[in-house]
């Protein structure tokens, strides 16, 4: 797989990001509950075939950078009653992220 078949990563660990609040139909690996939420890049995981394409037997190229993004629970769930520092980490593809 040539490197050119991967999209260049735009974010680095510690960057603040927002998940796009988009609702396309199809096979999407970005959970509903995290769309529109703000978090911080925990790490870049590498580049992976786009599942929204792979699910329909298409090649899924170029590969998309995949990140682990960390969110504060109380920002994701306004009624969260655990500790204020509790977090949820979610894997999100770059094309679902904007600067936040």
């Amino acid at each position: 797989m040539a490197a050119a078949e991967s999209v260049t990563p735009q974010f680095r660990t510690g960057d603040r990001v927002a998940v796009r609040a988009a609702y396309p139909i199809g096979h999407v690996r970005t959970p509903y509950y995290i769309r529109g939420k703000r978090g911080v890049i925990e790490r870049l995981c590498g580049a992976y075939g786009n599942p929204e394409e792979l699910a329909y037997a298409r090649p899924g190229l170029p590969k998309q950078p995949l990140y682990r993004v960390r969110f504060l629970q109380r920002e994701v769930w306004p009624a969260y009653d655990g500790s204020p520092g509790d977090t949820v980490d979610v894997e999100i593809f770059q094309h679902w992220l904007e600067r936040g």
Partner: protein
Amino acid sequence: MPHDHDHPHDHGNLHDHAQPHRHPPRPDQDDTITQWRAMEIAVRELLIEKGILSAEEVRRQVEDMDNRTPLLGATAVARAWTDPEYRKLLLSDGNAACEVLGMERGPYKLVVVENTDQVHNVIVCTLCSCYPRWLLGLPPDWYKSRNYRSRVINQPRDVLREFGTAIPGHVTVRVHDSTADMRYLVLPKRPAGTEGWSEEKLAALVSRDSMIGVAFAQNP
């Protein structure tokens, strides 16, 4: 097994309906063919018919998966507890750490998250049931249930309490949602009172649930 009990009647005489029969017959098909199972059978039979797979290969794969147990993961955890260099490798490159122990690297990237005095990690796949099967075997049924998947994500402390795992308020709870190409393993805290223990003895304290994060490693 229709006849797993003792009683006198003549099994050689199957057509003799005059014989008194004191138990209701069990159906020959004691299984339900759902739409998905029918599809699996159809695809499998086609693959075999076309010579892409053999029935023996399919059987071997099923057997291989059934033979995998959480002991593989527990072995890695016990090594990390006793060898600081290995712990570093496990946390930085989980797949390489599997290989070092002679285990499969695994088909997915392994992210290992460490429980400490400050942080407790718990794993879920809210979208389906992603799980490091090559290290832990098949996931438990509750891991795949809608109840666990929908509740541990937004009330992890309550769900952990239901598992008998109370996390003090000063400890941060981190839920990891396995949504794409990573698979996760929790490195539980080593229980106190296990100083000088062998890796084998330590591994026996590491349960499947402690590596998902819904339990602690067992105390000695």
